[in-house]
């Protein structure tokens, strides 16, 4: 599969502060990637470096397998960083015309993209009269003008009201459905969970995880189980292949799972061993738990 972006040992220091610490990952065509990390974890700096506005301290990156120069590669990309940056006194149309001139494309797509983000009716108003949500939507329209091979979005829903967040997410999902590769940086888990197939987790500039969202944590959640005779239950469970660490809580045992289990099967086997279960349920770990777990390590 075609590699769109390859990041190799990218590193950035601001004085003594390490913002990004030797990060490497690849972005393949057709996937929706999330860069996940708390505020200040180096997401924007990483994006800034690959977008040629922040100079890396060391390491490098290659767009489109190194076949074009960086600024030509950027013409094939659509990106918005942090907040929407446009010329305040120009209208939406005038701003987008300028972007077309920079990207060296014709202006025929402007109306179509403005329709997509539902801004067509305000196309002649100056940018400074827009609400934050409208500004953000204009930024997305601008990033889509060249039908980019990859769309990079940095915190696209930051500071928006719930309705605005909903609108932006709908637009992103629409774009993802068209098969456009997307790289989405966010500190919001459910955002990443809802749209992304792959995820890179950052904390304090270090990369903690990179891979598919569902494999982010290899465990299969845990079962919560209880019986009148806890001793016997503990003894019964500890030899099972699926059982990981067993912790005894006030309200029963929590067993971390190594593999998928069938609750009915467990119940049956326990009964056959003379143990009557008073409680049994399976809890899958949410992405949020996994995220907190990942970012709390070390």
């Amino acid at each position, binding site marked *: 599969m075609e590699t769109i972006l390859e990041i190799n040992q990218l590193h950035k220091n601001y004085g003594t502060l390490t913002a990004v610490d030797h990060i490497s990952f690849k972005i393949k065509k057709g996937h929706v990637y999330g860069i996940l990390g708390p505020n200040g974890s180096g997401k924007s700096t990483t994006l800034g470096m690959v977008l040629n506005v922040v*100079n890396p301290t060391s390491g490098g990156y290659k767009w489109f397998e190194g076949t074009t120069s960086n600024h030509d590669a950027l013409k094939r990309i659509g990106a918005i960083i942090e907040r929407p940056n446009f*010329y305040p*006194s*120009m209208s939406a149309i005038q701003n987008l015309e300028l972007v077309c001139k920079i990207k060296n494309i014709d202006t025929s797509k402007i109306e179509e993209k403005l329709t997509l983000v539902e801004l067509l009716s305000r196309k002649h108003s100056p940018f400074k009269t827009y609400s934050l949500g409208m500004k953000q939507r204009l930024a997305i329209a601008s990033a889509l003008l060249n039908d980019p091979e990859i769309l990079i979005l940095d915190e696209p829903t930051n500071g928006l009201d719930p309705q605005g967040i909903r609108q932006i997410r709908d637009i992103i999902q629409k774009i993802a459905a068209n098969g456009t590769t997307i790289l989405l940086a966010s500190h919001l888990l459910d955002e990443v969970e809802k749209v992304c197939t792959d995820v890179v987790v950052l904390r304090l500039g270090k990369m903690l995880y990179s891979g598919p969202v569902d494999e982010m944590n290899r465990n299969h959640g845990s079962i919560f189980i209880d019986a009148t005779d806890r001793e016997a239950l503990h003894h019964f469970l500890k030899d099972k292949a699926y059982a990981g660490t067993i912790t005894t809580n006030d309200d029963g045992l929590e067993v971390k799972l190594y593999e998928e289990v069938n609750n009915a099967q467990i119940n049956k086997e326990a009964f056959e061993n003379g143990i009557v279960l008073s409680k049994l349920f399976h809890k899958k770990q949410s992405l949020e738990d996994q995220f907190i777990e990942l970012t709390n390590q070390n």
Partner: protein
Amino acid sequence: MKRLLDIEFHKFRYSKSSKTLTIIYLVIVVLLMLTGMIRISFNQFSGSLSDLGIFNFPLIWHITTYFTSYLKIFIAIVLVSLTASEYSNRTIKQNLIDGLSKKELILSKFYLALTLAVLTTLIVFIASLILGLIYSDFNEFSIIFSQMGYLGAFFLAHLIFFCFCLFAGILIKRSAFALGFVFVWYIFEGILNIIARLVDGFYDTSIYDWLLHILPLNAMSNLIKQPFTKIDLVESTLNQISIAEIDLQYDIEWLDILSVCIWSALFIYWSYVLLKRRDL
């Protein structure tokens, strides 16, 4: 180059401050053309300004370029605010992300400065030509187009000043402060000049003469020297009080041309280095 100019003029066209200040500039140039009708009385002389002979070819080239040179501050304000507001609106970052290289960005600004310098020179050329054709006592073709060097000097003076302003805008990032920087630098050169003169007075050196050529704004204003003493009336008055012995130079000096060109190139290069090194 066409694409970069197109981008830059797109920004220029839709900026309010650039529109206003360009209009002010044009209005002043037109008003200046009307000054020929002003009547004055001075030293037993009475008549309109045009009777002074200041609109005679080729003197008019010197006179108009000298006076309209002061107006370049209006265009410079436009350039500084266009450049600095790219920082405050963060559009410079978006331009780079959209696929403009840092080199192209500086080049596009330089092309704008170059074009504005050419345009102002052209406007002053046309305005002077019209003025001259109306008021000049000599209308021979060879006289009309003599001493055109002043227009070249006018162009260079504008170019270096625009490049300086562009550099100030990139360096300081805030338009008001960048204009302040230009002003402070102007005063700084003034102070250096005073010090140099004092030192020259004490030690019989000629530092001041060198500073006049070496410092950017000095060299810029030294390109077109004051034309007052060339005006017939003033000249005759000076003769009457017999101080005409002073050897007055009006020529454009090659050293200034060289200095101005080098400074313009340096300002552009430094702007590029600044932009390249900075994290946006």
